[in-house]
């Protein structure tokens, strides 16, 4: 059988730096092919080459066995090759429906708004997504944006669908929805290429697996040949053990206490406390208000209620107030709120802590030193130090964002989706880093849609549902079923007991 | 001062931003072309400025790079140009000031000017003589400048005691479009207007178009100013809407340049003040003010 899409000895360089070295690769109709590899291994680059968004420096892209010579993404799309990009690819000012049909509007000379809206509605329903067709994309949470991206790709009726970390910003429920779509497409004979750093997903989905390391294929396998551990080892090139650090036991006094906290319009009546040296996990569905709560806590959103820091009531009106009180927040929205994509690593790293780098004149040397340390601590892989952050691989951007958030050495840090898009090796490093923070006597709130992460890291888990606390679990009570039950709201009676 | 030496005469004038200045620019270029032909020993440098600061720069450049022997300047504004022109004089150059006097007396060798006071007064006297007491008029003023103030003050002084009522005096900025708009609004606002003083012919043209559109052509007449050729033509043709006009000839720049040239090419010393009065153009004398080739 001729592959639907293939790469023959493809090399890709950005300027002097070669990031793909002689890749051979094929993708068949009716299969799900998973591409895995560390951050910066070249997965996104390879997918962009396949999808026509980048031209190979050497080698060929073959479509149905014949040289494809795509000059642009749209050209490839016209021939049935569709890409869901890792970076969001939506126009923020347009509505969901406008984005989905952009470039392929329905109607003759006049646009057929009704048809597009209905088709959008149908697509979103298929994805069990509650977003309205007329919602403006800039008003959507990142997870909904991702669902819109998926809807957009589905609307293209692709022969080849390339998905670059589509699940990174989704919760488990939405991932299930996505999987059903993937199964449907596979059955319909579509060739699917899938990347994810969640290896259990790869294990579940993939008919074949290709492992990339440093821009070269290091392993090819078929279903069942590799375990999750095997994949991790193939990616990282060494054995990975103990992804999650051991639990901590001795906690200090309460450092943060929240009472009757509300962030209008969604979040109300939140109360919890956080002890010194503790990791509090917050779980919940998309739209349950976790991000709003966090942003309210650090003064980024208008809020009401009381907040005590080491017993003293504080009023945080802005993020810099929060920083003065030793709080820090890592946003889930890397691209729109986290990083300046057109600036260098150094400028991004030090932005929120510039005061430490000299008054009145900034010390370039000190900044460079901090960057050097961050690169080492967080294993940031940047081909060049003075490159624009937007050109880093997604995972490395996330690591930089983490480094940036940790630079002020906060006492209490709220991390919203800490390992989004991060490879398994680095994930483990980050978990150990969080553990080290806690052992040093800091307190960490982890908001995560990744269930194993919540289970593996948290000393306590607070579950949110529709803007309220659905329940709090501690110690041995933290089990997947218990969390899921609270998340889905299947047991109202339990809530009362566990909340007490 | 007659020898084989060539002399450079700098001419600095405002740029052609409205009809009158356009005419003045045209006359300046015309005169320069003519004089360069006649007197090979004369070189001219012409610079136009849209703003006082730019004009100061132009004059500095002439002094620094063009080695001028004389400067003919029509100051964009009097005050800002006084210092720089004085610097030219202090450098030993011959200075001719045109139209707008400097704010310090005695700098220039030669002063050639129109008479803004008379420009307003002559028009005002015509209104006084030709309108009954109680007549209602409106005024279209120029750009807010000292010279506009002088004209309007003189006009108002001239009609004093005549019983003529000035309904309104807004700025038309010497601009046809602006004058058209303002006149339209005057016409909406005042049911009776007996005459219009548009202190410039460009504005008169705009105002006339508005009056025509409102169908009130027979109700009022208009006096403009500066002798634009189209207007002079209509006076010649005894247009009842445009009975007379007041001169303020853009050609005065020609006189200034010529007299400055004479200073270098003839032995007659040229010094002093030449005020070119504003006279009334009437159907009888209109012919002598009609220059069909001028753009103005």
């Amino acid at each position, binding site marked *: 059988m001729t592959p639907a899409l293939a790469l023959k000895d493809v090399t890709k360089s950005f300027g002097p730096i070669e990031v793909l070295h002689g890749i051979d690769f094929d993708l068949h109709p009716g299969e799900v092919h998973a591409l895995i590899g560390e951050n910066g291994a070249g997965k996104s680059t390879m997918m962009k080459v396949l999808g026509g968004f980048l031209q190979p420096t050497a080698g060929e892209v073959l479509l149905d066995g014949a040289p494809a010579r795509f000059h642009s993404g749209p050209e490839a799309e016209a021939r049935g090759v569709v890409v869901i990009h890792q970076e969001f690819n*939506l126009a*923020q000012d347009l509505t969901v429906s*406008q984005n989905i049909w952009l470039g392929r*509007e329905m109607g003759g000379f006049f646009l057929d708004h009704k048809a597009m809206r209905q088709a959008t509605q149908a697509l979103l329903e298929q994805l069990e997504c509650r977003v309205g067709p007329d919602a403006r994309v800039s008003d959507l949470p990142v997870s909904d944006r991702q669902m819109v991206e998926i809807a957009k790709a589905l609307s293209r009726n692709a022969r080849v669908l390339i998905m670059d970390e589509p699940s990174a910003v989704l919760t488990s429920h939405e991932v299930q929805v996505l999987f059903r779509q993937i199964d449907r497409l596979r059955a319909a004979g579509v060739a699917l290429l899938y990347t994810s750093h969640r290896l259990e997903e790869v294990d579940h989905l993939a008919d074949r697996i290709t492992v990339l390391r440093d821009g070269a294929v290091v392993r090819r396998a078929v279903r069942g040949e590799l375990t999750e551990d095997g994949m991790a080892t193939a990616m990282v090139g060494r054995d990975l053990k103990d992804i999650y650090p051991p639990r901590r036991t001795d906690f200090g006094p309460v450092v943060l206490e929240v009472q009757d906290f509300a962030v209008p319009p969604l979040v109300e009546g939140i109360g919890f406390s956080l002890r010194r040296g503790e990791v509090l996990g917050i779980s919940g569905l998309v739209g349950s208000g976790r991000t709003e709560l966090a942003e309210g806590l650090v003064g980024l959103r208008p809020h009401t209620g009381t907040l005590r820091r080491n017993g003293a009531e504080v009023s945080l009106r802005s993020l810099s107030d929060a920083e003065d009180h030793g709080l820090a927040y890592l946003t889930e929205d890397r691209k729109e709120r986290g990083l300046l994509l057109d600036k260098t690593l150094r400028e991004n790293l030090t932005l929120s802590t510039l005061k430490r780098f000299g008054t009145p004149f900034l010390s370039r040397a000190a900044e460079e030193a901090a960057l050097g340390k961050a690169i080492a601590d967080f294993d940031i892989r940047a081909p060049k130090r003075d490159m624009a952050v937007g050109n880093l691989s997604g995972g490395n951007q996330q690591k930089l964002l983490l480094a940036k958030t940790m630079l002020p050495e906060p006492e209490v840090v709220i991390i919203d989706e800490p390992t989004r898009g991060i490879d398994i090796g680095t994930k483990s490093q980050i978990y150990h880093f969080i553990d080290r923070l806690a052992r040093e006597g800091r307190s960490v709130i982890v908001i995560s849609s990744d269930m194993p992460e919540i289970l593996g890291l948290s000393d306590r888990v607070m579950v949110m549902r529709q803007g309220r606390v659905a329940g709090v679990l501690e110690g041995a009570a933290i089990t997947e079923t218990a969390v899921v039950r609270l998340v889905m709201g299947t047991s109202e009676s339990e809530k009362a007991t566990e909340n007490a | 001062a007659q020898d084989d030496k060539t002399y450079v005469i700098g001419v600095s004038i405002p740029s052609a931003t409205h*009809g009158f200045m356009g005419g003045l620019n045209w006359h300046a270029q015309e005169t320069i072309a003519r004089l360069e032909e006649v007197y090979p020993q004369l070189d001219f440098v012409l610079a136009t400025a849209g703003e006082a600061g730019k004009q100061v720069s132009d004059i500095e450049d002439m002094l620094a790079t063009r080695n001028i022997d004389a400067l003919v300047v029509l100051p964009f504004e009097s005050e800002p140009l006084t210092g720089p022109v004085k610097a030219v004089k202090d450098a030993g150059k011959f200075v001719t000031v045109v139209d707008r006097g400097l704010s310090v007396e005695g700098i220039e060798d030669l002063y050639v000017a129109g008479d803004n006071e008379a420009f307003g007064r002559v028009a005002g006297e015509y209104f006084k003589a030709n309108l009954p007491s109680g007549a209602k008029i409106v005024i279209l003023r120029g750009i807010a400048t000292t010279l506009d103030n002088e004209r309007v003050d003189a006009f108002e002084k001239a009609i004093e005691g005549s019983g003529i009522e000035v309904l309104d005096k807004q700025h038309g900025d010497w601009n046809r479009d602006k004058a*058209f708009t303002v006149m339209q609004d005057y016409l909406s606002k005042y049911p009776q207007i007996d005459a219009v003083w548009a202190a410039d012919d460009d504005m008169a043209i705009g105002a006339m178009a508005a009056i025509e559109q409102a169908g009130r052509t027979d109700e009022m007449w208009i006096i403009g100013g500066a002798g634009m050729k189209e207007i002079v033509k209509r006076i010649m043709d005894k247009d009842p809407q445009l009975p007379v006009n007041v001169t303020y000839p853009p050609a005065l720049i020609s006189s200034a340049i010529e007299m400055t040239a004479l200073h270098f090419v003839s032995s007659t010393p040229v010094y002093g003040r030449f005020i070119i009065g504003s006279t009334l153009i009437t159907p009888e004398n209109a012919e002598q003010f009609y220059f069909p080739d001028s753009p*103005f």
Partner: protein
Amino acid sequence: MRNLSLSTLGPLAALILLIVLGASLNDNFLSAGNITNVLARSAFIGMIAVGMTFVITSGGLDLSVGSMAAFVAGMVILAMNALQPSLGVGLPLALIGIGVALAVGLLAGLANGLLVTRVGIEPFIVTLGTMGIFRSLVTWLADGGTLSLDFAMREYIGPIYYGGILGISWPIIVFALVVVIGEIAMRHTRFGRYSEAIGSNDKVARYSAVKVERIQLLTYVFLGLLVGLATILYVPRLGSASGSTGLLWELEAIAAVIIGGTALKGGFGRVWGTVVGVLILSLIGNILNLANLVSPYLNGAIQGVIIVLAVVLQRKKTSAEGR
């Protein structure tokens, strides 16, 4: 409904306030004559502002429209004067004038658009340059003075400005048509949709098979055409063009667009808003002329205050969230 949000009602509210103010200051304010005057004089800037809405929405800018209008008017007058001896005063000559206006406008817009899209220069710089070029050319063509249409021809085409049907004058009718077409183009055609998409994120648009350069080019050409159209209505009014024709129209057009709620950074365009913006600006001038409020020297200040206030009315309460 989203379309009836505060930011739509804001400028409308400002407009209504101005109308109430005008009516209370002068009885003739609401007379048919005055309303016709205000609408007709809004028409020039209005048509240009509708075109500008598309340019700005797609992330561009055009500073040259005022001098482009002067240039187009100059070319029309030159062409008509040159052909009048052979063609005589009449419809053919008028049609040629119209043709010249549209053609020159189109070419001028094309020049701007090509410099922006093919050569890749900032629109601000391109149109600052062409602004100087067009204006200079008019001054030069007019020899520093005024280009005037031959009087007979002017009488003939005068009705284009002053005439009309059913008591509504042509500029108003044409303006209304342009607005309707503009609104439909913005809301209901690909051209408008793509303009918004490009202004919002040109990379996304490019990834979605939108021909970014072509659409951007089209916005400039469309604007050029509208400048030509506006000039067709302008020339009969006074029958002349000079270096001072259309002075600062660009600022007025851009201001109208922004007052109407279109974002200067692009991505979001509102043609109706632009119309309201144009009317607000025209009304301010009209009211200042009709009412002897203060020293005329302060007109500019009052105008400034009202512009700012009109926009304050349309702003929502801003918060970290709202941004």
